């Protein structure tokens, strides 16, 4: 089994408008794939389809060269998705937030691992502050701590750089490249321009079309 996410003639229609059509994708280990396109071109939708959240699409998805329907469990076990909303509870502290994610992903509960993950994203000293009192950037960092906390091969990140300061952006970019180089795979949308590197590949979305089928 190897890390490989494929899509064949993927198409998505929203309100009688095609967001994208005939999209073929082949994403493998060691790649950073940046999905580009203007606002409303379906970047988030594509990421949601590729992370198995949306069922309203045409075409076929394959994970490890088998249809997604059959491999959903194994796919989800290898996926880490960070959406627009960070998924951080304001009433809980960063440690408590991470504890839930740790348990949810089937990791053994370990406080040391949580501390280390928070350290990685520069939140030392904020471990026990309710997340509601943290800044937007810091809340995003709590979500990003999951990259370390729950190791997964496939990262699907929707605008992960939102609200993060310059140092954080640089650190996160390094983190993405590192992940790709160690055999992982990153699928990302961002308005922030990524530093070009060997692993980076782009997918451009934009402009739908009119149906002429059936």
């Amino acid at each position, binding site marked *: 089994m190897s890390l490989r996410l494929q899509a064949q003639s993927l198409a998505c229609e929203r*309100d*009688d408008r095609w967001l994208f059509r005939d999209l073929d994708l082949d994403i493998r280990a060691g790649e950073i794939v940046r999905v580009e396109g203007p606002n409303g071109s379906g970047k988030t939708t594509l990421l949601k389809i590729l992370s198995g959240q949306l*069922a*309203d699409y045409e075409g076929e998805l394959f994970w490890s060269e088998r249809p997604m329907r059959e491999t959903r469990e194994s796919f989800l076990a290898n996926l880490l998705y960070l959406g627009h909303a960070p998924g951080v509870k304001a009433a809980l502290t960063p440690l408590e937030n991470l504890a839930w994610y740790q348990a949810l992903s089937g990791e053994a509960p370990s406080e040391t691992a949580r501390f280390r993950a928070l350290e990685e994203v520069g939140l030392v000293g904020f471990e026990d502050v309710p997340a509601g009192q943290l800044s937007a950037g810091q809340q995003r960092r709590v979500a990003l701590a999951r990259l370390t906390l729950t190791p997964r091969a496939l990262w699907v990140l929707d605008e992960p750089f939102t609200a993060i300061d310059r140092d954080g952006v640089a650190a996160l970019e390094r983190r993405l490249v590192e992940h790709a180089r160690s055999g992982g795979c990153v699928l990302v949308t961002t308005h922030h321009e990524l530093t070009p590197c060997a692993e980076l590949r782009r997918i451009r979305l934009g402009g739908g079309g*009119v*149906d002429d*089928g*059936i």
Partner: protein
Amino acid sequence: MWAFINKLRSPKWFYAISAKLQPWFWAAALILIVTGTIWGLAFAPADYQQGNSFRIIYVHVPAAFLAQSIFVSMAVTGLVFMVWKIKIADMAATVMAPLGAAMTFIALFSGAVWGVPTWGTWWMWDARLTSMLILLFLYLGVIALRGAFASRDSASRAASVLAMVGVINIPIIKYSVEWWYTLHQPATFTVTGRVGMPMEMWLPLLIMVLGFYSFFIALVLTRTRSEILRRESNKRWVRELAEEAN
């Protein structure tokens, strides 16, 4: 079987086949309802207890039958849509909901009108009327839920789930309401379900029921066809159809 299911995936195929079917159902509905109405209202004997007012069953009973059947059909088409992603099933479910609500309302209204000569009041918390009222709320819920979603696919799937949840609950609601009714008002006259009705009375009723069902099928076919055109308006075959018509 599979060939048939695969054919159902094509709205174009359904559009063609329904064009051939719908006149037959419309004709059957017209003949049966006209025959049943004339027979029921003019020729069937008057009830020895209720006189002529009993004749409202020729509307009330078919409407009540249909009200329940439509909900079940809606759940079945919802299931078909969820399992096989057949869009036709969802279009049919879409057009069935308001029709079912209308039938439920007719059953309720005719029951209330019937209540005046039998109970001397427009409304009694009779078990059947109460279940009908709850059914009306269930229909309104499905219609409202479908209308509330921005995305059509989500709306369809949400309405399907709700219809399925509702259909599991309908028998439970029905039996609990009946139980509740016998507890609170034992041995009052119930509107329908009388045994020993003479043949001259129930034969026109049977004809009316069949007529209502034909009407239901015909109307669903016709309305599903316009729903197909509405949803597939950007498909090539619909455009060609429109050009031919011009």
